[in-house]
Structures are given as structure tokens and as C-alpha cells.
């Protein structure tokens, strides 16, 4: 049975290609094509957490809030908002906004969107992977068709940040077509483009939505193509097969800058790199050894020579654009002599052997440079590269076994707040992510909790300054830098990279 159905595919396969047409001509002027490394597994904006999916979703859906190019809050589906108390916010909704299927967006849809992510999953049915992002929300109350109240469990300073990517979906429509169809063929939002065709691992074709409340986007057709190979993406960009590609690596930048039909646009983004140190075991159970490691790294050289200058040194892990950053806390200077002294004081006058781990394949050369720099001051490092798959299981989740540390990065989920990195990386609560395995810093948990449970921003700021000083002194990580988002763009299109890793293509314009 199986064999027959498989064999039956051969003629079908040949037939599907039988309608021959000439090679793809240069694209029509009103089409914008984006090359992505992969095509997301569902278009349902609440049922994945892949960057390549978010980039598509934001052009098809709106959230309550939006961020301008300067990353300031802008009204989107909510026209205004205000805090009613420490735990309750009021949002006035935009009137007369249409979904792609013709329904009008109301408070019902807003409540439904939150509820479908917050509701516990039934057996066999997976809960939304975005639950963690909004679980501080206790309830969404409908006041009238144009007003909702969002109530949080505790004071939740990150609420507005979380609402910038939280797409509002049409309740009646989803209830009618079902979740499966909504994610594949019957996707409907309120955004600038609506779905035409979704083909897994191939492309997503969108078309301008005439009734979008911002007006019509400059490009009538928006196509996302899945092109896994970087060399192919570059070839497509040069020949006009695609107009925008992402994650252009440092070595490709000069080529795309020099090419007559392409240019490069970059923006600093939140993705911050670090080497987390295992504080449970020697040698990094000693503060002086951790500080020595921090003095051993020539961060500026890595950024300039290995990343083509597309990065900036960060003193701790809190990004300069995140709320809570304090410029008075400065980076560790590169000082190999001091590093050796500190290491000797920590009890390792003859150096020490360690192993560091990483699954951050794109930055393998950087990882190896870090290992070399550590080795030069006597922290003789074996860098161990893992496949992104099984990596997580093998090192820091292994209790009671020295793993020394790992090199990785954190993108803050595009939330510009210190809490978005401090809590997942350093908090030791059992529900936390990395912190519970590696981190042993007295008082850090309490400070993180204190800063996240008030909406008084000046008090939060003070607490974060205190945390930054504590982090620098205790050095639970080797602090490194943040990277840039680098796009290769066709000269036919005008577009600038954003600081939040978004591809907000409503802003893209054809160049004359």
C-alpha cells in the first residue's frame, strides 16, 4: 500500500513540472521578495517562537502596540493606553479595523487572543510556546467593544514591551475554520498583507490588504522564500531573485557593498554574547579566577577583526539600549598581565585546564579566539563545539559534573529591558533557565525579583545599577559584546535595518 502510493508519486512529480515556462524573469516592480533561511512551520502567530516566523507574522498581523524605527512605542490596534493601578492597564482599541476575512476587530478578539495563549493545553495538544512571555497576565477584561483592561498577577513592568509582538487574531474566524487551517491556509490578521499561498520549506506569498488601517503598503506583493544556503541567497540577491537577505556575515559585507546592485544596512541589536561560567566547580568557584577570565579577553579585537566591526562591547550582559543599563559600570579592560596575577592569587600560579562548550555555530571562530585568549593567560581552554540539537542536554543540565562554562548569546526576545536577560540567565529559581545550573551569587535573586515587581521606573533603575555593579564584581560570566543585524538589500528597494531584528516591510519603498 505504502509502496504503491510512493511509486504513484513519480509520474505526479514529473507532471507537476511538465508545464514548462521560460526562466524566472526579473521580478515585477510591485513585488518585494525576502530570502529567509527557512520557512516557519505554521503561520499561526501564537503557535511558534521562531524568528523567521515572527518576521512573517508582523507583516500580516498587528499587535496592540507597535514600535517606531527609533524603537519608541506607537499606537497600533490600541490607540491609547494608561495604567489604572500597579496591576491594571486600560487599552482603547482602534475602531473599524478589519481582518483580512472582512470581520471587524473588537475587544472580543483581543481577549480571545490572550486567552488562547494563556489557557492550559489539553492532553495531546501543545500549549502555545509563547505562554512564558505573557504568563504574568492574569486576565483580560472586556469593558466595552473598544476598551479592554489587562490585569497582571503582580506589578509587571514589562507589560508594554510584551505587547509589541503579541498579534491579535480573529476569534470567530478561527472558531469557524479551526486552528490547523488558520495556521496553514486560512490565516487572517489585520496587517498590511494577507495570505495568498503558504508552501512549507518553499515560500509564503502575500498580497496587499486593501482595507488595512494604515493604508496600502508600497509593494502589492510580498514573498518570503526559504533559501537555506548563504551562497545561494547571495546569488539570488545579486541577480534580483530576492530583494532582502538577513544575517549577512562579516566576510560577505565587502562583496555586497561593492556590488552594483546591492547594498548593506546594519543596526545594533539586543543579541548579547557571553561565556557563562560554572560557579559550582573549580576553578570558577573562585571570584578571582572569574575576574581573571574577564581580563583575558580582547573584546575590541574580536569585534573589529572577526566581526567586521559589526558589534559593540557590553560591560556586563545588559545592553546599552535596554532599560536598566548604567554607563558608569565600565567593561573589564583587556589586561593579560593582571589576568595572570589574579589567576595566581586564586590559587593557580601554574595555570589551569578547562573545557568550554558551545552550540553557537555561526560564531565558531569567535569561540575559538576566546579559548585561545584564555589559554594565553594560563586558563588552558579546550573549546568544544556541539550540534545545536543535543547540546543542551549534555552540558549545563548535567548536575554535579564540572562543565566549566559555555559560550552563547541571548536576544532578549526583543524586549528592551534588563529583566529580559537577567531573569533567564541569572535567576536561580527552579523554573529559571540557565541560572539554576551555574549561578551562585549571594543576593542576586532578590535584587532581580525586586526590580521586576514594581512599575516605579526610577526605583527599578536604581536596583539595576546595583545589580550591574554586583555582576561586574562577581563576574558569573565572561562579558563580551552585542552584535548587529546585517541585511543585504537590492538597490531597487529602500529599507533600513531596525534595532529590534524586525523586518517591518511596510516601511520598504521601491527606489526610483
Amino acid at each position, binding site marked *: *500500500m*505504502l*509502496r504503491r*502510493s*510512493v*511509486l504513484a*508519486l*513519480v509520474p*505526479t*512529480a*514529473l507532471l*507537476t*513540472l*511538465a*508545464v*514548462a*515556462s521560460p*526562466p*524566472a524573469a526579473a521580478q515585477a516592480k510591485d513585488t518585494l521578495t525576502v530570502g529567509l533561511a*527557512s520557512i516557519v*512551520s*505554521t503561520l499561526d502567530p501564537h*503557535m511558534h*517562537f521562531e524568528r523567521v516566523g515572527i518576521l512573517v507574522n508582523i507583516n500580516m498581523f498587528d499587535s496592540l502596540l507597535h514600535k517606531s524605527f527609533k524603537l519608541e512605542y506607537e499606537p497600533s490596534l490600541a490607540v491609547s493606553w494608561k495604567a489604572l493601578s500597579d496591576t491594571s492597564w486600560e487599552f482603547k482599541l482602534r475602531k473599524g479595523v478589519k481582518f483580512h476575512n472582512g470581520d471587524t476587530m473588537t475587544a472580543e478578539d483581543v481577549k480571545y487572543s490572550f486567552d488562547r495563549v494563556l489557557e492550559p493545553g489539553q*492532553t*495531546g*495538544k*501543545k*500549549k502555545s*510556546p509563547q*505562554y*512564558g512571555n505573557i504568563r504574568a497576565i492574569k486576565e483580560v477584561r472586556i469593558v466595552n467593544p473598544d476598551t479592554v483592561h489587562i490585569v497582571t498577577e503582580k506589578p509587571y513592568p514589562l507589560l508594554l514591551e510584551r505587547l509589541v509582538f503579541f498579534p491579535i487574531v480573529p476569534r470567530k474566524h478561527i472558531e469557524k475554520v479551526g486552528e*490547523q487551517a488558520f495556521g496553514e491556509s486560512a490565516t487572517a490578521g489585520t496587517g498590511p498583507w494577507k495570505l495568498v499561498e503558504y*508552501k*512549507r*520549506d*518553499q515560500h509564503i506569498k502575500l498580497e496587499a490588504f486593501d482595507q488595512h488601517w494604515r493604508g496600502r503598503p508600497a509593494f502589492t506583493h510580498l514573498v518570503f*522564500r*526559504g*533559501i*537555506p*544556503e548563504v*551562497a*545561494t541567497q547571495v*546569488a*539570488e540577491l*545579486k*541577480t534580483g*531573485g530576492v530583494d532582502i537577505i538577513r544575517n549577512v556575515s562579516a566576510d560577505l559585507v565587502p562583496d555586497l557593498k561593492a556590488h552594483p546592485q546591492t547594498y548593506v544596512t546594519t543596526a545594533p541589536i539586543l543579541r548579547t554574547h557571553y561565556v557563562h561560567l560554572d560557579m559550582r566547580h573549580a576553578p570558577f568557584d573562585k571570584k578571582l579566577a572569574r575576574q581573571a577570565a574577564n581580563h583575558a579577553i580582547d573584546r575590541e579585537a574580536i569585534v573589529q577583526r572577526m566581526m567586521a566591526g559589526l558589534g559593540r562591547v557590553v560591560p556586563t550582559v545588559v545592553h546599552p539600549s535596554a532599560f536598566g543599563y548604567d554607563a558608569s559600570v565600565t567593561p573589564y579592560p583587556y589586561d593579560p598581565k593582571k589576568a595572570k596575577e589574579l589567576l595566581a592569587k586564586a590559587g593557580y600560579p601554574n595555570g589551569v585546564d578547562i573545557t568550554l562548550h558551545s552550540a553557537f555555530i555561526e560564531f565558531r571562530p569567535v569561540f575559538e579566539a576566546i579559548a585561545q585568549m584564555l589559554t594565553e593567560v594560563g586558563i588552558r581552554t579546550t573549546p568544544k563545539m556541539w*550540534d*545545536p*540539537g*543535543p547540546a*543542551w*542536554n549534555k552540558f549545563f543540565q548535567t548536575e554535579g559534573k564540572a562543565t566549566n562554562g559555555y559560550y552563547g548569546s541571548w536576544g532578549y526576545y526583543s524586549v528592551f529591558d534588563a529583566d529580559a536577560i537577567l531573569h*533567564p540567565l541569572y535567576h536561580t529559581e*527552579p*523554573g*529559571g*533557565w540557565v541560572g539554576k545550573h551555574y549561578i551562585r551569587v549571594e543576593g542576586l535573586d532578590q535584587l532581580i525579583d525586586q526590580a521586576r515587581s514594581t512599575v516605579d521606573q526610577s526605583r527599578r533603575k536604581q536596583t539595576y545599577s546595583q545589580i550591574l555593579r554586583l555582576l561586574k564584581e562577581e563576574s558569573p560570566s565572561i562579558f563580551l559584546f552585542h552584535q548587529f543585524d546585517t541585511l543585504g538589500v537590492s538597490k531597487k528597494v529602500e529599507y533600513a535595518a531596525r534595532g529590534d531584528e524586525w523586518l517591518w516591510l511596510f516601511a520598504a519603498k521601491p527606489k526610483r
Partner: protein
Amino acid sequence: MTALLVRRILRLLIVAIGVSVVTFSILQASGDPVSLIMPEAPEADRAALRAALGLNDPLPLQFVRFVGNAAVGNFGHSFFHRTPALPLVLERMPPTLTLTVLSLGLALLVSIPVGILSAVRRGSLLDHATTVVVFLGQSMPVFWTGIMLILLFAVQWRFLPVSGWNDWWSAVLPALTLGSFSAPLLLRIVRSSMLDVIHLDYVRTARAKGLSEWFVICRHALTNAALPLVTVAGLQFGLLLGGAVITETVFAVPGVGRLIVGAIRQLDFPVVQASVFVLAMIIVTVNFAVDLLYIYLNPQVRVR
């Protein structure tokens, strides 16, 4: 004849069981998919998902469940795509099969005549040139060939699309790439097996009968020389089917190879299992076809 068929079908079943044991056990050793599905989620959420996916059950139970379902074509839902795994795999088969068939056809089309010619004209300029091309072809990695072809035909000359899977034009470069990988080996086989038979007595007899050289080569020599070619071409089919991954990646072809690699990276057990199973079945089927061809080409097999 019937006994032969029964034996082959039995072999097919044994392979099916073998494949399911292997895929099931390899994947069990490779890690926890939950930490990949939600890497940054709290432990409580992960535990819930692990339970929902049945990953906490004892291994033998998981295996029995797997085999029982696989028997009726149910490999479970993909962890990532949230749809049944088998249709997901079948949906990706057409590009991969098309590519495999096209490239093997292309390889045979080139390797048979050139192989015969260089055997017949052994030591000629053509023969030497062929040897060089074979060396080159076998030492070039597929991804490199692919990228070079793109640069030449799509970027420089612009008469073929760079990548994608839209029409016959977009199949040209990937088929060429994949074909250039298997053509050299086939060519070598044709040449050496032709050389083996061309000096045998029966060929001389055929010539002595006054048959035309063309007829002698094609009818008498080639039929016997074809046996190793058929074997290797059958094996190549399997190799191309699996080896299409790199070509599919370079040319952004939405084939099953990319699906598998993606699924392995995401530890999407059901999809890996379904695709390995389907591919193994196709390969077994092709081997079966090769056996039948043998019977046709070599009467001795029929008699035994």
C-alpha cells in the same frame, strides 16, 4: 520465479522491521526534543509537554506503540509542524524523486555512450580525456559544483534561475549537479565492464559472423556488460535519493532531504522516522526492480 518473488518480498518485510528498530533506537539516544521545542521555557511547561508527547513512558512501550502505528502508516504528529508526519514526508517526495530520476537519467545518458566509446577506442585521446573528467567529477564535492554552476549559469550568464522549484528550468541546475556526481562512477563502470567482455571469444565470433560493429557492441557486448551497470545504477539511485540533501539545500528545493535534516536538527522524531522509513522502502523497491532486470538480462538467474 514465484519463489524468487516471495523471497524478495520477505526481504522487504525484514528490511522494514530492521529500519524501524534502527530509526527508533538511534533517535532515542540523541537527546530531548522538549528542550528544543521550548528551549527557554520554565521546567513545569517542559514537563507537561514531555508528558503530552509520551516521552516519559518506558522505552519498550514507546517502541511497541511506534511499530503498531507505523504498520498502518501512522508515524504520529510532527513535533514541529503539528501535522501527521507521513503526509508531510510524502508531500516532499516529488521534488526529490524528480531530481533523482532526472539526474540518474542524465548520468546514464552521458556515461553509457561515452563509456562505450572510450572502451572501444581504448588509449585514444577521447579515452584519456574521459579519465581526466572522471577524476575531476569524482573529486568535486556536490555543494561546490552546485555553487559553481549557479555562479556560471545564473549569475554570470543569467539564463537559468538561481534556485527554487517552480518549473522545468529550475530543475536543470540541480539535476546537472547531482548528475555530475554519479556520471563519473557509472562511466567508469561502463568502460571497465565493456573492456572485460570486448575481447571475449563470443564477441569475436559475432564479428566473424560478419555482423556490423555497431550491432556487435550494442547487442552482444553491452548486454553482458550491462549487469554491473544495472547493479551500480540501482545503488546510485539510493545514494542520490539520500545525497540529494546537499543539492536540495544549495538550490532551495523543497525536497525530503531538507525535511529530514531539519527534523534531525530539531529532534522531530516522528518526521525522521517516517522519512527514513519511506526512503528505505523506495530503496528496497528499486533493488527489487534491479533484481527483476537481472532476470531479464541474465537468463542464468531464471534457470537457477
